[in-house]
């Protein structure tokens, strides 16, 4: 009797396993059953939650029998946990990555999807942040950009033309002098506790400092830290601190979210913000409303071409070769046109899909989108993790005059080998 029961259960199980796969496979062209484990760093709000639901739905349209398990990890520990999981052999099938340094430094762990996503090249922007060694490792979902936001009310209080923000470094300097003289707030909100300030400064103002040729060479890995313009960035960073542009105690102020709170709360006239999940136009608009303005980088040197610094922000990479095909389809679902359209409005993120029209009357958002065609990749994300960390530390030391520009440039040049 027992033997019969075991045999019956085994037969049912075999039937179940053997029956499900061919049925779905034939109906949806290669669909599979099973589970797809995906790591990300969670959803910041309802809009992000809704976007995730849309993506899962888009994926399940093609793979109805595949269960998607999203595991949200804390962002602060994300790459540490992911690295540990990979070493321990318990890595997820796919994981969310920041484009640029974070992805490039882990490219050897990922499986390239260059050919599989080739058809998306025309509709999406920001690919370079997800490419390394000639291969593409993910599709950018959103664009990460460093637009400069300003507070029109503070500009007016300082006697400045709020509708015509500075376009040159000299004008910006004059504006800061007026703001510091006429108001009680700082010119720029700066949080440099983690050393992030200088990377925002570098990428935020870069197109007005470097010539287009220098800019492209930088992205291609040919960086001359001791050259005139790279040194100039470090000098300007130090000089602006000496000139009192920033809030007191910038080196002990966290960028996320303390410095952005300073700007939102009207305690600073300008801030270099983001276009992705936080510190974006929609978030600032909630506090500043019509006082929120967007300005392009300013011209520092002749022969430069101003460009909005923006590139692919985040995207999923495939860690498990056995789930490669499913992984590709998941990545495709994350750049689903409808899902991105819905989220760009609700979440405030500028998406990578260039065919989406941002249906909002918030002017700063429209201004940012209008600058996207001429945008350039961020300079700091082209750096290695080691150089970026060195830049963070030197940025702090430059701010308090504990290292000279020459020394800093020399250390950065040595770091790049």
């Amino acid at each position, binding site marked *: 009797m027992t033997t019969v029961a075991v045999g019956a259960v085994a037969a049912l199980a075999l039937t179940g396993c053997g029956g499900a796969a061919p049925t779905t496979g034939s109906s949806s062209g290669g669909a599979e059953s099973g589970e797809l484990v995906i790591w990300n760093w969670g959803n910041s709000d309802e809009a992000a939650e809704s976007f995730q639901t849309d993506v899962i739905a888009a994926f399940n349209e093609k793979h109805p029998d595949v269960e998607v398990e999203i595991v949200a990890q804390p962002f602060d520990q994300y*790459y*540490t946990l992911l*690295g*540990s999981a990979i*070493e321990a052999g318990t890595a997820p099938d796919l994981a969310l990555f920041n484009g640029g340094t974070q992805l490039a*430094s*882990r490219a*050897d762990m990922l499986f390239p999807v260059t050919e599989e996503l080739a058809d998306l090249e025309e509709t999406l922007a920001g690919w370079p942040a997800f490419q390394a060694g000639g291969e593409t490792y993910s599709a950018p979902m959103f664009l990460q950009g460093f637009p400069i936001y300003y507070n029109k009310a503070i500009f007016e209080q300082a006697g400045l033309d709020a509708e015509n923000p500075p376009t040159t470094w000299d004008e910006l300097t004059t504006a800061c002098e007026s703001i510091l003289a006429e108001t009680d707030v700082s010119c720029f909100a700066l949080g*440099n*506790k*983690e*050393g992030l300030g200088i990377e925002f400064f570098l990428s935020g103002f870069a197109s007005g400092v470097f010539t287009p040729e220098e800019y492209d060479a930088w992205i291609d890995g040919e960086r001359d830290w001791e050259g005139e313009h790279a040194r100039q960035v470090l000098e300007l960073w130090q000089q602006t601190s000496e000139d009192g542009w920033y*809030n*007191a*105690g*910038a*080196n*002990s*102020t966290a960028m996320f979210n303390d410095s952005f709170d300073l700007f939102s709360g009207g305690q600073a006239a300008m801030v270099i913000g983001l276009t992705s999940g936080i510190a974006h136009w929609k978030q600032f608009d909630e506090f500043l409303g019509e006082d929120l303005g967007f300005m392009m980088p300013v011209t520092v040197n002749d022969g430069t071409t101003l460009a909005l610094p923006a590139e692919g922000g985040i995207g999923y990479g495939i860690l498990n070769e056995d789930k490669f095909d499913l992984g590709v389809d998941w990545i495709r679902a994350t750049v689903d046109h409808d899902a991105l359209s819905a989220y760009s409005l609700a979440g405030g993120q500028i998406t990578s899909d260039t065919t989406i029209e941002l249906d909002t009357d918030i002017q700063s958002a429209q201004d940012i989108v209008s600058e996207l065609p001429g945008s350039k990749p961020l300079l700091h994300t082209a750096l290695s*993790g*080691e150089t970026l*960390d*060195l830049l*963070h*530390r*030197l940025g*702090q*030391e430059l*701010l*308090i005059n*504990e*290292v000279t520009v020459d020394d800093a440039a020399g250390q950065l040049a040595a770091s790049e080998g």
Partner: protein
Amino acid sequence: MSLDTSSTRSLVLADRAPGRTRIDRAPRRRWTLERIVPFLMVLPVLAILGVFRIYPLLLGINFSFTGDRELNGVFVGFQNYLTLLEDERFLASARNVLVVLLFVPIEVLVAGLLATFIFLKVPGHRFYRSVYFLPVVLSPIIIGAIFNIVLAANGPLNGVASSIGLPTVDWLGQTLTALPSVLGVHVWATFGMAMVIFLAGLSTLDTQLLEAARIDGANLRQTIVHVIIPGLSQTITFVFVTTTIGMLTGLFGLLYTMTAGGPGTASYLPEFLIWKLNGEARPALASAASVFLLLLVLVIGLIQIRVLRHATKEA
């Protein structure tokens, strides 16, 4: 020259009790239930230690001799250690360990003095005992968040300073003040535990000695120096060494929330560096830094054992 041990052997054999032959002793060696049970009871602890402490430790040491990224799993000898010796952050964290050690006597002194006052029943001693212990139960993250506000450039501490004409300082944003500020907060947050150990030690003091000192007219200073401190020598040693180990391995939470290792490398400590290296996708290098921290703590631990043994002999 050969050594004749026959006389010694005969003495040893002669010392045996009558009737203790090999045949008599044999049954005692049997693994009876009574003899096995104690080992079985210790086994879970040994297993937990083995699985969760010793095995990861050995893995970590082994891992420190392998490479990162494309060299993942490849034996690289001492390369990671050589890399660390050229890493500015590692050198800074090693230097900063010396600063940490300077704060150990401060914590021991604060905890010891306050425990003594409470033991001598200063007015309100029950209240102070609770208040002093309170920070121990708070999470380092919460303490870090609180002192981020207190020590901010425009925070209340600088507010008080400027109101009385003193210069304001960005306590957590300056090289000279960042690590000492964190260590000061750590002392405040943890001295309560050291104080409790001191109170336990004080409760074992010979009250007759204290009474005799009082009758002889000893003042407070004389009582502390000549009666209490000598009587507490073992406790002081214990608190000193455990505080050192606590500072070397328990500052991550405060560093993470208060300074993030900066400015520059001013507040880097080995624990924070390990976390940073792992976050930079260099787990093997992080393992090498972990071994360094292990050696550091091991040296302190050996000193602890040596000092305690010495103190016990004195007692």
